[in-house]
């Protein structure tokens, strides 16, 4: 039986050369994201803004968003966003935070129930008060920052500082581009999005660590190979694994996008984008960044010390070489 190989054996792509394109490209995209973030802003969900979200489903399968909008405007609860979703008469209402503290929020749901209960099934009702939403913003931000710091500490401990920094550059890049994806698609940014971003952080590091692991191994083996060549070799020798894992992960996410239902689709789409970006950044951003982070310097010093010890074995009895 002939088996499938998505990446041919013994590839010799000059990946790090691409940094002349990938670095400016990613910098440009990141800049665009930053500008977009400041001008347009994220489409925050009620987790972070507070307010009320109601998902209705027409009992007869025929939703009438226009009618719902008209009735909802009569509530006098501010700007109500009404949208159709799904295929079977789904209508969603989003009501902003009501002035007058936490209690005022509950009144919105009561009004909606009175108005729509006859024709629609209440599939989902979520009300988040202003205090809780503020706390969710805090814990969400804290989560992303903490995870980066924790992983950086781990990598510093397991590898070396340059590797840790290189990996974090890649991860930050992935977070920024994912946020850019949120900005362009206008996908709602909520607590689940934070989960998606943290998972992307995990996946991004996973990708990077696999390549870096190989780099570390090759550094020990080929002490005189130029860094660029060595990095290319690391990426090439892990390339088929990178492609395989990206494919299997993307396949499962694709299943989730196609069959997972409305409630989880956004999460799956963002993750799918994340997997692609993570794969790109592991190869074209994190790995070449090592050239500038001075991996060369520290390891050459170690290598020379090693050679010195070999040349004059009798002169020193202390720990020979500082190879990691």
């Amino acid at each position, binding site marked *: *039986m002939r*088996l*499938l190989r998505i990446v041919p*054996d013994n590839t010799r792509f000059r990946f790090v050369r691409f940094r002349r394109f990938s670095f400016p490209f990613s910098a440009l995209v990141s800049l665009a994201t930053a500008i977009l973030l400041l001008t347009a802003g994220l489409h925050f969900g009620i987790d972070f803004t507070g307010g009320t979200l109601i*998902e209705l*489903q027409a009992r007869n399968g025929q939703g009438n968003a226009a009618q719902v909008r008209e009735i909802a405007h009569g509530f006098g609860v501010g700007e109500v966003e009404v949208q159709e979703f799904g295929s079977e008469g789904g209508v969603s209402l989003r009501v902003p935070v009501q002035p007058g503290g*936490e209690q005022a929020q*509950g009144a919105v749901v*009561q009004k909606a129930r009175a108005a729509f209960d006859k024709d629609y*099934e*209440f*599939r*989902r*009702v*979520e*009300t*988040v*008060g202003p*205090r*809780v939403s503020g706390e969710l913003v805090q814990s*969400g931000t*804290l*989560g992303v920052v903490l*995870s980066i710091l*924790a*992983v950086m500490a*781990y990598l510093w401990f*397991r590898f070396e500082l340059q590797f840790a920094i290189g990996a974090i550059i890649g991860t930050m890049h992935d977070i920024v581009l994912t946020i850019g994806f949120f900005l362009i698609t206008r996908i709602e940014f909520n*607590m*689940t999005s*934070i*989960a998606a971003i*943290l*998972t992307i952080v*995990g*996946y991004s*590091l*996973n990708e990077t*660590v*696999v390549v870096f*692991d*190989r780099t570390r191994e090759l550094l020990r083996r080929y002490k005189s190979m130029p860094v660029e060549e060595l990095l290319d070799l690391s990426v090439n*020798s892990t390339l088929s*694994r990178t492609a*395989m*894992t990206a494919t*299997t*992960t993307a*396949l*499962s*996410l694709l*299943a*989730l996008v*196609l069959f*997972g*239902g409305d*409630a*989880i689709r956004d999460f*799956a789409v963002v*993750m799918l984008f994340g997997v692609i970006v993570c794969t790109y950044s592991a190869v074209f951003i994190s790995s070449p960044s090592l050239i500038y982070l001075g991996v060369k310097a520290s390891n050459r010093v170690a290598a020379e010390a090693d050679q010195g010890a070999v040349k004059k074995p009798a002169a020193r009895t202390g720990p020979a070489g500082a190879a990691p």
Partner: protein
Amino acid sequence: MLRYSTGKIVAILALTFLGFLYAAPNLFSKETRTAIAAATPSWLPEWILPHKAVVLGLDLQGGSHVLLEVDSNDLIRTQVATMRDDVRRILREQRVTPQGGITTTPRGVQFRVASDADREKVLPRLRELAQPIGNALLGQTGTQTMEVTTGDGGLVQLTLTEAGVRDRISRALGQAIEVLRKRVDQLGTTEPNIQRQGADRILVQVPGLQDPQRLKDLLGKTAKLQFRFVAEGGGSPGEVDMLPSKDNNGQPVPVEKRVIVEGEDLVDAQPGFDQRTSEPIVNFRFNVRGAQKFGQATSENVGRPLAIVLDNEVVSAPRIINPITGGSGQISGRFTVEQANDLALLLRAGALPAKLTVVEERTVGPGLGRDSIEAGKTATYVATVFVVLFMFITYGLFGLFANIALIVHVVFIFALMSLLSATLTLPGIAGIVLTIGTAVDSNVLIYERIREEAKAGRSIISAIDAGFNRAFATIFDSNSTMAIAALILFLLGSGPVRGFAVVFLLGILTTVITAVTMTRMMIALWYRIARPKQLPF
């Protein structure tokens, strides 16, 4: 290394068997599981025949999640108002007139009396208002709920201490949870979950409710506590209710319709000991209005039993020994310490101690929950088929090994979640689907390494050996970084998001076992049986 001892093989197979055993209850309906639990002979330890399944999150089974917050300002206001009433009563009793009346401060009250003699007269009485913090039966901290201080110009200040306020909020939360639990139980839904969250919040989770408004109404209402005399002489039917009783062997007790005092006039109730008999008792205290009514009624009815009625049920009916005019009294009734504690709690539970505000509500209708489960199942199956096929066409026989490990991996996740009674949420399902994609990563790492080693000229057995050994460090590092991110998500997330983190963490854990140990065993067995000359991929 490729030689696996029989013991090790048996251990791995046993672990796999246990995984399937513990995951199995998820295939049965709740009724079947309960039946299994009931039918298990008592001599058979529970772990042999497990009946625990994963708990479905509210987003999957439908239900309401309501986060309530105790209004601490309201609580302080109430306390200050009570304090003011108490001070006024004491001043009146001691015939002391404050200059300019009693004024309230943010956390207390103050007034001025010019005469030192008057001041000395009221100060000891005022100090009696302060109560030690902590449970009288379980040890005290020595701090008081309030401080009485004096200043220039005959100033007297009563201030709630910071510890006192905190203690009050904390106790209010405990009381409210007790009240809420009793209320939610009346809804007759299965497995409601009520728990304290943070310093001043209560989380109420009720599965399977169609209309959360009823729940919210119920959570917002005050319970009814009444003090009514027992009608000993019979009395006419129009004036007497036959009320069920907790003691009295469950016999109904005739109680007068006339209510002496209601729960809303009760300001506090604490367990304690009778000073003479050392018997556990409950001390209670009324506000001014309650104290007056109670004092008058008890003076006129010494010797009669007074029924304490909660939600139209007689909690107890102690006999009035002395008139109770001071606004506080005690209930004795041969209680155990625990019973005294409970009664005190019940008395306090009479009214919600403070306003509860809904700060977050999330309700998912049962229809959406069902649809989500169906969609999640489909996605899981499709993802499995995609990945299994892809692994097989890429690695052939080795892909098959990885696929077996993948199935066991999913089974292990369910087994562990069942064992831990973890909650499966919709994002949790997404987590499972995602780990199906990432679980084979370890296998891919190993297989690619084996290929490389074989291409470098190693013999097949030494290539396999080196592949496993060299890939392991990478697997360890890459999974650790994923686990760190998942752990932080678990610590900071709540509800559905936390459900995702749980699945992802467990997934990382089991994948290392299945993808490394289990695949390695299968390859070792294959090598021993087939004696291959070359790698199958």
